[in-house]
Structure formats: C-alpha cells, structure tokens
C-alpha cells in the first residue's frame, strides 16, 4: 500500500477581485458614518449589538463570513469545525465590563456552537432597555445594569451550502427591573474559489420585542450579507485576510463594515497578526475605527481588540481561543 501523496495539491493563487470589490463597497458604506450624526439607540438588548470577540471587534465587527468559534454570535451557518473554546473579556471607557464564552464542536454531521455573552454596565436609569451611553458613563451613583444573551447554534451541509440556525435567550436588567426575549438566527454560507473565499447570508435576531415593566423595544433584527477571504499569501512570510459585511436593519438603514488582517508567520503554527477595521457605528457610543493584534501558537490564540468610542476613549477586549 502506498499513500496517495502528490506534488502540492494546491491550485494557483486566485485573483482577489471579487473580494476586493466587496471590501471596497463595505468601506464605502462605512466611511460616511465616520462623519455621520450621533446615532440614536434603536434596539435592545445592548449585548446583541456589541462585537463578538477581540478578533471580530478588531476587524470592524464583521461576523457573517469569518470562521471562528465566535460564529455562534454571528452567522450560525459557520459554527462547528474544530473543537474550540473561546473566552473574552472587555473593558469599556466607563464602568462597563463584558465577557463572552463560546465553544464549538462537531457532533456527527452537525456543527454545534454554544455561547454566552454578558455585559455588566452600571446605569442611571431604573428601567431597561439600557442605552449605549452606559458603556461610557462612570457615574458614582449608578445602579446595577446588565445585559445577557445565551445562544445555541447548529449547522450542517445540504445541497452544496452550509446552513445554520441559532436560538437564543436575551435579557436586560436595570436596577431591579428586567426584560427578556427569545430570538432566532438563520444563516447560510458557501465557500467559493476552492474554499479561499467564504460568503454568508444571515437573518439575525428574529423575535418579539424585549419587554420589561411594560416598556418594549425591538430586537436588532437584520439581514446581513458577508464575504471573507482567508490568508492570501504575500510572499513567503505574510498572509493577508479580510472580511466585509453589509446589513439592512429593521428600520431600513443600510450599514457596512469591513476589516483586514495582516499575519506574519515566521514558522508553521506561529503567527502574529495586525488587524484593523472600519464600521458604520450603530450605537450612539460607538465610533468607526477598530484595531487589534493577535498571537497564535499552535492551538492557542491570544487576541486583543480595540474599538474607538465616543468621547475619545476606546474599549479594550482580550480573547483567548483554545483549539
């Protein structure tokens, strides 16, 4: 018996034209936001509108076509793959802190993802929903406020596409009041160009308004389309990747975001990544620019993300991923 090895079973480098066009479009959609008026917060809960992990934060918050354990917070069709665990902690300019835990695994033909995302943000209001201003405030007499979402997602292949669905429970608390809602996501992805480019489409946060003490606010329902390109080789040692999202919100607003990642790989299994992104801010507290760094050593990755926030400060986020 002999193994069926072959000389490099790779195809040629592929022209990144379609990806570049998509990326440029996302930038074009997000750049006007840099000078846009202050956004009003329309939806709740707040935790569903924050970026998922340090990596996605650094890349403009794109999640529709990025393969990551944190897909459970983005496009459910991308959950699964390697058994992975991710733990994230965030610190906002105000007194707010956030944490996320996500895990992905394969069970038979299903990819499974589980995620919990939590925001602890002291608030000056007594009733939910929380406003994004809580991310910036550092009031001495603020009252306890929190926002939480727990998600379970599954994905599978069918007819050449990867399909996924997620169910989640989201809740928001302010002082002694709380409101909760159940929601669902559905998504589909397709790898093209021999798997180097991933495209994804998802409808997120389908559900009834979140209510607490008679006050209701819609979930951040949206239809989002994304495209992601995995490492495009730049010479021997560098890879360039990127992703872009376009979304139509419930209120009809069209928003875009995009990000890139330049990785230096000095030896197999080790990489150092520099990331940057731009987005159309959807929360009053957010600003367009994001950035970050990442180090990967075999099965362990440590990522840092930064997002610009209103008032000149920034939010910091650190994730550790274990494969």
């Amino acid at each position: 018996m002999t193994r069926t090895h072959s000389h490099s079973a790779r195809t040629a480098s592929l022209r990144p034209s379609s990806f570049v066009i998509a990326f440029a479009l996302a930038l074009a959609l997000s750049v006007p936001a840099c000078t846009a008026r202050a956004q009003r917060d329309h939806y709740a809960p707040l935790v569903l509108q924050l970026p998922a992990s340090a990596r996605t934060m650094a890349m403009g918050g794109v999640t529709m076509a990025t393969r990551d354990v944190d897909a459970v917070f983005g496009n459910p069709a991308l959950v699964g793959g390697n058994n992975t665990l991710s733990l994230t902690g965030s610190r906002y300019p105000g007194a707010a802190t956030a944490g996320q835990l996500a895990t992905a695994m394969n069970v038979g033909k299903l990819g499974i993802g589980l995620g919990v995302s939590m925001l602890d943000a002291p608030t000056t209001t007594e009733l939910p929903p929380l406003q994004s201003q809580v991310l910036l405030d550092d009031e001495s007499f603020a009252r306890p406020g929190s926002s939480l979402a727990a998600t379970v997602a599954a994905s599978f292949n069918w007819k050449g596409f990867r399909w996924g669905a997620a169910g989640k429970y989201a809740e928001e608390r302010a002082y002694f009041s709380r409101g909760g809602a159940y929601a669902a996501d559905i998504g589909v992805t397709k790898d093209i160009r021999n798997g180097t480019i991933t495209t994804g489409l998802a409808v997120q946060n389908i559900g009834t308004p979140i209510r607490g003490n008679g006050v209701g606010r819609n979930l951040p329902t949206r239809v989002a389309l994304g495209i992601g390109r995995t490492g495009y080789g730049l010479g021997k040692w560098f890879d360039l990747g990127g992703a872009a999202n376009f979304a139509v919100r419930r209120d009809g607003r069209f928003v875009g975001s995009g990000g890139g990642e330049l990785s230096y790989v000095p030896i197999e299994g080790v990489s150092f990544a520099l990331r940057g992104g731009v987005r159309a801010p959807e929360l009053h507290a957010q600003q367009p620019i994001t950035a970050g760094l990442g180090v990967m050593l075999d099965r362990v990755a440590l990522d840092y993300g930064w997002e610009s926030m209103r008032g000149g400060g920034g939010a910091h986020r650190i994730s550790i991923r274990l494969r």
Partner: protein
Amino acid sequence: MKTAARNRRASLATWSTLLIASVTAGCLTTPLKLTPDDSPVVLSQQLIAAPDPGMRGPLAVKTLYYGSGTDERRPEFRDSVAIRTATVDGSKLAGPPNPEQGKIRKKYWGFDFTKLPVNGRVWYPEGAGPFPLVLIVHGNHSMEEYSDPGYRYLGELLASRGFILASVDENFLNGFMRGENDARGWMLLKHLQAWRRFNDSTGSPLQGKVDMHRIALMGHSRGGEAVAVAGAFNRLSHYPDDANVKFDFDFDIKSLVAIAPVDGQYTPANKPTPLSNYNYFLIHGSHDGDVSSFSGLAQYERIRYTGDSSYFKSAIYVYRANHGQWNTVWGSLDGGKRSARVLDIRGLISQADQRRFAEVYITAFLEATLRDKREYLPMFRDHRVAGRWLPKTMYITRFQESSFHAAANYEEDVDVTSGSVPGVTLEGDSLATWKEAVIPYRWRGSDQGHNAVTIGWNNHIAGDDTTKLGKPASYSVTIDDSLRSAWRVDGGSSLVFSLAPTDAKPGPRSPAKDSTKAKGDSASKKSPAPKAKPKPKPKKDAERDSIPMDLSIEAVDAAGHVARVPLSGYGVPRRPLEAFVYRRAGRDKERFANTFEYVLQTYTIPLADFVRATPGFDASRLTTVRWRFDRTVAGTVLLDNIGFARIPAAFDVPAGGMKP
C-alpha cells in the same frame, strides 16, 4: 514632546514584537540534523573512463513547439507552434470521479477534458537523425504556474548528445485533481501517436528525424507514476477501467525514468500497476517535502522481467535532495512559496548539484538503454564507480538485472525457513531477531508493499564479563543441486541481495545453560554468599545503535570449502540516513513513523571473488551462502531479494575494481 514619546513607544513596541517573533521562531525551529557525510571516502574513485554524461555533447540544439495552436493561456502553444496537433478526448480517464474539475478547467483554460491539447516543447539536435525520442512529463503543481519549461536543462543537454526531448504540457491536469494519473499516462501515449505523425509527415520539420524504435518516457512526481501507467497501457488493447475505450499504442518504449514519483494514485482495475520488460530508473530525494517517502520503490519491486531479453532496473536514493529541485520552475520549496514556514531547506544540496545528479544519471541511463553506450552500465549497479561525476552527498543504490533469480524475496509464505522457490532453505543461528515482515515507509501507516527479513544479533554473552563473546551469529540460504543447475550458478554468476542496517541493537544473548551444575551442589554451599548487587536498569529489547557496521559473506561449496568476503568491499553498509523535512522541532517525529526511510542497498558479489578469496572453492558446486555477523558485535539488518544472476560483463566494476 508628547509626539516624540509616542513615537518612541511605537518604535519600542514594533521592535519588541519583532524580537519576540524571532525568538519564538528560533526556539521552535529544529536544529539542522544531518547524517555525517561519508562522500569524501565513498565517492573518492572514478572507475568509468567514458566521457562525463553530464557534459554537453557536440551537437547544436534546436527548439520548437507543437500544440493546438489555440491555447488561450500559453502564447507558445498558440502563436509559436511549428506543428499543429488535434485535441484528444480524455474525459473517460480524467473526468471521473469529479466532473466539477472539468468545469474549473473549462473556465480557466477554455477547454475541458473532452478537448485536451497535445502540447509540447521540444529540444532536438541539428542533423538528419534519426534520434532517440524521450518524453518528459511534470507532475502536479499549481496549474497556473506552468511546469513544463522546468526541464530545459535536461532538454538542452540531451539534445546536444543526440536525443530528442519533448517536455509534455499537462498543466491542465494540475490543481485539485485526484486519481487522474491514468489520464497523465494516456496523454503520453497520445503524444507518441502525434510524434509518429511528425516523423512520417512530409514537410514536417521533424520528418525522418525520430527513431520510433528507441523511445523513453520520463516523469516527475505524479508524472513519475504516469510513465509506469503509460508503460502498462502501451501493451493493453483496452482501458482497464472502461473497456469501451480501446487502446492501439504498442510503441517501442525501451526505458522508463521516474523522478520522485508517487505510486498508487491510479490503480488499474483496483490493482497496483503491473509492469514488465522495461528498463526502469528511479530517483528520489531523502528531503522530499512533498512525496516524503520513497514511494517509487513499490513500483520498482513490481517490475518483472520475463523472456531472454536483457533489461535492468535501478533506483537511487539521493541524500539531501528534495522534490522540486529536479524542475527549475518548482525550486527548493516543495509546497510553494509559503512552505518556507513549514519546510526546513537548510539541509538541501544546491539546486545545481541536484540537477547535476539528474543530468549525469539520466543521460547515462538513456545513453545505455537507447544508444547502447554500455560503458555507463556499472553506475546503475554501484554508484561508487562514478565518484568524480556525482555531487558530494550520500547515495543508496538498488539494482536488478533481468537474469536475476530470487532464492528468497520473502513474499511466498509465512514459513521463515522456506525460500521463494522449492529447493531453498533458510536458516538462522544464534540470532536475537529473525522475522519476516513488510518494509515500512517513513509515512506513518504505509509500507513498501514488499517483505524483507529482519535479522538481529548480539554476540555478547550476558553477564558480568562484558568482553565475553559467543560464536558469531549467522543467517544462511542453502540451495539444492537442481536449482543450482537450473540457474546455471557458477563462477560467472553473482550473488545479489539487498541489505540495510537499522539502528536497533538487540541486548546480549543469554549464556548457554550449564548442565553440569545441579541444585544443591555442595560446592556452592561452601562458597560465601555473593554480595548483593544493585539491580541493573531494565534494558530495552533493542537500543539505538550508531556504530558503523560490517559483516562477512560466506559461500560454502559441496566439498565444504568456505570462502569469505567482507560486505563493505561491495558497498557501504550505512545505517539509515536521517532526514528532517520540517522546520518545527518535533514535527517529523509527529508526522512520520521514522525520521528516515528504510532503503536497502543492493550488493552484487561475483562468485569469482569467493574463488579468489579461497583457492579450491568451487562456485559451480555452491550450496550455501551465509551472512556471518562477525565484524560488528551487535546490530540489526533488513535483508531482501537474495538470489543469483548472470549479469552481463558490461555491468561489472571496471578493471582495477573498487578499493574497499
């Protein structure tokens, strides 16, 4: 001030990051490990007096292209073709099992498997001819980085020496394809059909220049398997996997050359490709970062010789050679540019040296088999005869000539005492290890598809006296009279076998039991109680051994005359050559079963040498050959393909012989 401080901080962060990256990479990189080079000694002699086959010949070299004339991607096959060729329909061979690949090709190339172009670039000598024809085909690579120009160095050399070389374009079969090596081989035969027309057509620039009775096929990587497939298809009337496809080839292909080939990617009728009656030359590098096992050895073993015609097969393992340097387009990084992160290329011989080896050996093989330049034949039996021509690295040679009769190839049964034919008896004496098993490849979980016997010995007697040695262990093959007569074994015959020392060292042998001592012996009662000794550390069955090895080969005739020669006089019994392919420390051990390949060296010992060693020894009455482990106290060897051959004198080491 603030800006300056910020710049300093940014600069510090940048340099710190780079420093951390470099230190991390440095810590994780395996140190360069190579087996100590013995080439200054092994390659110190040049016994062939013929002209260096790696040097250009006297003929002027001309070039031309032939092809479809419509190629959208390759200007040379669109605008520069001297001879137009029709496309061929390879859909039944290359199409299944993934028709999607046809669509990908249609999009990129403008054609699918139904209209494959017959494109080639040709180097040919100026002159009337006819000249022997050699086709070379590349293997799998990026289909957008065209592989066929990468053999120009061979084309120019061979053409200057009177061969026509055509480098066949099969880039359209490259990329993410699997199981398409039938199509690669079949395409070679379609090219030969085109060449028959080039030679026969009036007005063709190649009219009458091609000797269609002296043809060789060469292939690299998947192309290396393709030449074996082509060799098999050449003699078939139907495609084995779909008999509706009829074959009508039957070309006078004399020789096949496989360069770092794969094996078993295509299996006709789900069987390994059978091959018979071709001269076959196989080369492979120890540091191959793509086909990291010497997989062509399986095909080498499958080649059979029948009838009276003279053929030979030879395989050479080239230490520190890789996969891609045989082709100037592919280069030193076997997985593409980005594999610099993965593959350790520090140990490779230079691209020039690796190609120099190809030039010397491939030319010599073609000269010997297509143009009867028999002076080059000894190189294929023992590379040491061409020491001055070869790049200074280590080589292992396998060789078999068509007159070979196997006494023991360990394929026939599970009885370790029976040979490959009736009349052969195998016997071991004082061996620590004696077993027959398949030879593993370096690739984890795969093997060479061929059995060998593993012989281990330790002449030390266990006990306090570490100098006490027992009778040297031995392993012997005995043949009966009728077999000796049938094989015409006499002073003109040679003993042939393949052997490789391993790094395993069995523990000392148990002392013989003393039957004169009984329980309750009064003498022992009188002696004082022995002092309690600390328990020795438990020893593994076989330790790693790196001491150079040698042993004696004994021949015994019917009258009991024993003649003995040292093995090292006929080749270097090297322990396995260690090859680390990956940069990351520990990756080789993780991904491979071994950090070396078991490659058995073929030893050919003329029986006349035994006669010279012991006057009175009668080779025509030979009964037993014995491997006597008397020159190295302990060790283990793999032994295979033991037999006798009446090798033509042209293969003999030239006058003067090798100095041990």
